[in-house]
C-alpha cells in the first residue's frame, strides 16, 4: 500500500434507494489521494461526484467497498474534524447573519469569541463581502452566498478540504481570484484538497491530478497527472504543456475540440 495516500477509496459502489427500484450512482470506484495533494474531479452531470465527496466526508455510507481517511474510517475522521466541506449549494443558515454563518464552525469547535470574529472578518475581506457581514443570506445574490459558504469552510482550517463545485456560480474574475487564494492557502498549509469542477481549465490550472469520471453509474475513467511547474501563475497558461493537458483532459471527457 502506498504509505502516502491520505484518502483511500477501494472498490466503492453506491446505490440509492431500494435494491429493485433505486439508482446505481457509483460502480466500483477506486482512488487514492495523497496527503497534501490537490485533486480535481471532473465528470458529466449526475455521474456521482457529489456522492463520492459525501462518502469521503461520512455524510453517506457506501453500499459496497471501503473508504479510509487518514488511516481511519470516514466516521472517525469526521469526528476528528479532518474534513471541511463546501457543498454544491450554499446551505447557509437563513436565520444567521453572514458573519455568524462563517463563525458557525468555529463556534462548534469552541473557539473564543474574539478569535471567531477576527477570523470571520479576515475571511469576509478575502471574499470582499465585509460590508455584508450583518446581513442575512437571503439578502445576497446566489454567487455571494456561495462565496460565504466557501469562507465558512475555510474558517476552521481542516486537514482536508472537500469542495463541490465551489466556483460554479461565480463570474470569471471572482473565480480566478478565489482560485489563486485557494492555491495560496494550499501552498502555505499543505491542506489536501478534493475539488469538483466542471471547468477543465480550472482543473488543470489548480490541480496536481485530475480524475475524470464516466457518466452514471460513475467510474473513474482516467486519472491525469498535471505536471505543470509550481507555483502556477498567469504565465502557466503560456506553457505548451498546459494546452496539451487541457486537450488531454477534454479528450478523456469525450469533448471533441481543444477550444
Amino acid at each position, binding site marked *: 500500500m502506498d504509505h502516502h495516500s491520505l484518502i483511500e477509496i477501494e472498490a466503492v459502489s453506491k446505490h440509492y434507494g431500494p435494491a429493485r427500484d433505486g439508482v446505481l450512482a457509483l460502480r466500483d470506484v477506486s482512488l487514492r489521494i495523497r496527503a497534501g495533494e490537490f485533486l480535481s474531479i471532473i465528470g458529466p452531470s449526475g455521474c456521482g461526484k457529489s456522492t463520492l465527496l459525501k462518502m469521503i466526508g461520512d*455524510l453517506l455510507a457506501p453500499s459496497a467497498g471501503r473508504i479510509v481517511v487518514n488511516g481511519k474510517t470516514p466516521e472517525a475522521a469526521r469526528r476528528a474534524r479532518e474534513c471541511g466541506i463546501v457543498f454544491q449549494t450554499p446551505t447557509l*443558515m437563513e436565520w444567521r447573519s453572514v458573519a455568524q454563518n462563517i463563525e458557525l464552525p468555529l463556534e462548534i469547535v469552541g473557539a473564543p469569541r474574539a478569535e471567531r470574529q477576527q477570523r470571520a472578518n479576515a475571511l469576509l475581506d478575502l471574499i470582499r463581502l465585509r460590508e455584508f457581514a450583518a446581513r442575512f443570506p437571503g439578502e445576497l445574490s446566489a454567487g455571494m452566498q456561495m462565496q460565504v459558504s466557501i469562507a465558512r469552510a475555510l474558517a*476552521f482550517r481542516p486537514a482536508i478540504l472537500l469542495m463541490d463545485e465551489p466556483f460554479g456560480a461565480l463570474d470569471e474574475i471572482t473565480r480566478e481570484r478565489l482560485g489563486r487564494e485557494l492555491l495560496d492557502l494550499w501552498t502555505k498549509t499543505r491542506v489536501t484538497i478534493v475539488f469538483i469542477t466542471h471547468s477543465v481549465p480550472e482543473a488543470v490550472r489548480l490541480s496536481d491530478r485530475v480524475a475524470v469520471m464516466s457518466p452514471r453509474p460513475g467510474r473513474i475513467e482516467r486519472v491525469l497527472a498535471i505536471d505543470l511547474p509550481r507555483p502556477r501563475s498567469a504565465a502557466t497558461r503560456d506553457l505548451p504543456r498546459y494546452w496539451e493537458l487541457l486537450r488531454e483532459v477534454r479528450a478523456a471527457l469525450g469533448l471533441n475540440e481543444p477550444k
Partner: protein
Amino acid sequence: MRTLDWNSEMRLPTFVRAHIQYILIPFALGLFLLLWETIIIVNRFPAFILPTPREVAHSFGANWQSGIFPRHLAITLFEIGLGFSIAFTFATSVGYLLAKSPLLEKIVSPYLIATQAIPIVAIAPLIIIWINTGSVQNALIAALITFFPMLVNTIIGVRSVREEYRALMRSYAANRWQVFAKLEVPAALPIFLGGVRVGITLAVIGVIVVELMWADRGLGFLINFAQGHLDTPLLFATVAALSAMAIGLYLTVVFIEKIILRWRRSVQ
C-alpha cells in the same frame, strides 16, 4: 419581495396601509359592541340572560375596585403561568425525543393521546385522592391539555429541519447539544411557535375548566359563583377578562415571534 404579495390588501397609499389597523381594529371592536347591543334589543334579553356591555363594564369596575377581581385574576394568572411552563417544558423535551426517535413515538404517543381524550371530570376522584387540590395541582392538570399542540408542533418542527443543514452540522462533528441549539431550535421555531400560540390559549381554558370544577379561588371560581348567584353581569365581566387575558397572552407570543423571527422579514 414586497411586490410579490399580490394579495396585498388594498391599493392604498403606503402610509394609510401601514396604519390602517389603527382605524380598523377599533372599528371592528365598535361593530362587535354594537352587534351585542342589537342582539339584546332585538331579542329583548333581560340582564340575567345577556347583560349589556355597559352593565358588564360596570360590574367589572365595581368588582375591580372592591379588590375581588384583582385577587382572583392574580391566582388564575399564576396558575396559567405555571401550567404553561410545565406544559412547555414537557412538550419541548418529550417532543424533541419523539421527533428524534420514531420508534419511541410509536410506543409513547398512544398514551399521550389518551391523556387528551380523558375528561378530567372522569378522573377527578383519583386526582383529589392522589394530588389533592390547590393552585399547583390546578396548573398541573391544565398543563395536560396545554402540552399537546406544543408537543406535536415540536415534533413537526424538528422533523422539518432540512437534511442539508444536518449534513453540515454532522460534517463539523457537532455534538447533540450543538445540533439542538444551533440548528434545530432556530429551524423549528416558526412551526414550534405556532404550537405555543395554541398552547397558551389552551392553558387559559384549561385552568378555568379545573377551577370551575373544584377551586375556591380564581376566575373559574368567580364564573361558578356568578352563575350560582345568577349574577350574569359578573359572569360576563369574568368571561371578558378571560378573553382579554387569552388575547393578551396570544399577542405576547406573536410579539416574541416577531422578534425571534426577525430574519424572516429581512429576507422578504
